[in-house]
């Protein structure tokens, strides 16, 4: 039976960590049973390269040293791999325990538990159940978008990417080439900020509108990465939250609570209707139409026309 990968990785890690001098590939092959069974040199070499990458992925720093005979040796030295001393009290430990549970994405959930386990091994106190300590709060970070993981890695490694992106109102996706800077989750949706190479400008993309695969490009970034990347402000302006004007509407008494909550002025007209002044930003027309016959737009004329236009489309069926 083939030897489980975790066993092979574990043996390689312990060999590299336990040795005082660099070990050659040959020595490692003779020491680890899974490598002895690997068969041809080719399949051993491939396996060994992949294993080193995997161990680096989980944080092991593997030094490569060439000896006098020109033979390459490997070693995971104590100084470069030891966690610096860290002391956390029970409260701090419980708080981190809660934080480590919020990811719903497999890779990050695994990485967060891994971090906590390393801290446990370093003496992180463990008596308190994080949920007991924090009451009933259960924050969760949702990640449903397939594009998330490749983009996260591309942001981490500062690698340009290419993907097909369909704008909300476009019939078809278009190819985009992007230097990815940062990912941000706001109101449960993920967004990417980066440099759009074809447009030569900064752009924000919503991950759920990326269609197909995210492809890696080998080239380097061409534009400077700004110190502060602002995603939320851009998205808020899409959502019409940056209103700079106001509108006057009539609203049936008792209806439209969210409109009332946003209103700067409410006047009771006494005939079963109220008059409201509300902020007028992008998307207000579509929102007002949702209230059907309970809303009538008075001003401005432009908004009134937009709403009538939308209502006509629905009335025609």
């Amino acid at each position, binding site marked *: 039976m083939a030897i489980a990968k975790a066993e092979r990785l574990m043996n390689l890690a312990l060999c590299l960590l336990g040795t005082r001098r660099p070990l050659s590939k040959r020595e490692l092959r003779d020491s680890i049973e899974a490598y002895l069974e690997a068969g041809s040199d080719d399949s051993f070499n491939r396996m060994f390269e992949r294993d080193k990458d995997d161990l680096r992925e989980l944080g092991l720093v593997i030094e490569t040293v060439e000896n006098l005979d020109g033979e390459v040796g490997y070693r995971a030295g104590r100084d470069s791999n030891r966690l610096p001393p860290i002391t956390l009290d029970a409260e701090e430990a419980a708080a981190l325990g809660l934080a480590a549970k919020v990811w719903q994405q497999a890779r990050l959930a695994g990485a967060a538990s891994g971090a906590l386990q*390393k801290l446990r091994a370093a003496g992180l106190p463990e008596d308190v159940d994080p949920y007991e300590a924090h009451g009933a709060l259960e924050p*969760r970070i949702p990640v449903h978008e397939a594009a998330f993981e490749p983009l*996260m890695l591309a942001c981490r490694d500062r690698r340009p990417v290419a993907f097909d992106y369909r704008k909300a109102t476009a019939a078809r996706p278009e190819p985009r080439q992007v230097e990815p800077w940062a990912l941000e989750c706001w109101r449960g949706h993920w967004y990417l900020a980066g440099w759009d190479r074809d447009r030569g400008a900064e752009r924000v993309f919503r991950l759920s509108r990326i269609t197909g695969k995210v492809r890696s490009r080998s080239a380097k970034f061409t534009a400077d990465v700004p110190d502060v990347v602002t995603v939320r402000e851009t998205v808020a302006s899409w959502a019409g939250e940056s209103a700079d004007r106001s509108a006057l509407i009539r609203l049936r008494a008792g209806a439209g609570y969210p409109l009332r909550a946003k209103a700067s002025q409410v006047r009771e007209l006494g005939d079963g209707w109220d008059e409201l002044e509300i902020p007028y930003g992008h998307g207000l027309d579509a929102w007002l139409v949702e209230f059907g016959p309970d809303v009538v737009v008075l001003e401005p004329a432009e908004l009134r026309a937009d709403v009538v236009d939308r209502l006509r489309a629905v*009335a025609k069926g």
Partner: protein
Amino acid sequence: MAGKPARPVNAIDQTRRMLSLVTYLRERPGARVGDVARAFGITEDELVSDLDVLPMCGTSFRGGDLLDIDTDGERIWWHNPAALGEEAAEPLRLAADEATALLVAARAVSTLPGLRESDRQALLRATAKVETAAGEAAGASARLSVTFESEGGVFADVDRAISERRRLWIRYYSPARDEVTEREIDPIRLVSVGHTYVEAWCRRSEARRTFRLDRVAEIRILDEPAAPPEIELRDLSEGLVQPAAEDPEVVVEVGPGGRWVAEYYPHDSADELPEGGLRITLRTPDPASLRRLALRLGRDGRIVSPQDLADSARQAAQEALAAYDAPQVPGSRASGAHGVEDGLYDRREQGR
């Protein structure tokens, strides 16, 4: 408690865990299986499968010993801790992904308005210490960020009611019926998935309900104790809206400008139409609640079925237009057909 995300057995995760496990076990001869599993955030079965692998491992170069670790199912014994030298047994530095996952989550949680101040302070202290210990590995964590949304005052009251086990009175807005209703609820837990929700037992409907905090118009903590019946908590990782198989089907056809519908509504199918449109089939316990959607879509889409839903949207639009044709007083009209509440959908962040 929400279920953990289901994770397939992953060799990297398992290796990472076993490396920490040996350091941990070396210091704790006779550690209890249950305690270790809890400390590592894994099931006892997962731990036992690690303990099956470890005796096959060692610093085996030049005939070093394999780790002689075994368990009687209750305690874990390591008979040759010296098999692992000091070097191989030290706690390991955090990887970039590990630092990112923990730090981004910690920063996000620390912004939750409902977090107790003492907990927030503890989390901020811990975050700073982890940043220092992670060193360079912490750098990439700035490229990922998460903001939880929640209404501070409402959150604090709900949180307090839960910890004191008291009943709440709320005025709550249901978008589907466009009305604010009063109800008494026994809160069970707070959940943040994008927006923040309280899951509660609703005394009015005698059923489990989920309320979005930004739709709570008013809140008061009552003197009565909360007495929610024992109910099994759902795993909400697949989303809060989980239509049932027996719910009626709604078919919507949208043009390119209405494709966002497929992003916001859990649906059974979304088939491409010519010119970039979609035919979306979804289920909801209450199709009438989708009248708002039909109105919102305008020329970007239409309800194909059920017919009464399509009719009610058309009727509402015609009624609304009448007020613009006759610009006097738009009152004194019978109100349109209203749906029954579902209270879960919100289309306001459509974006473009």
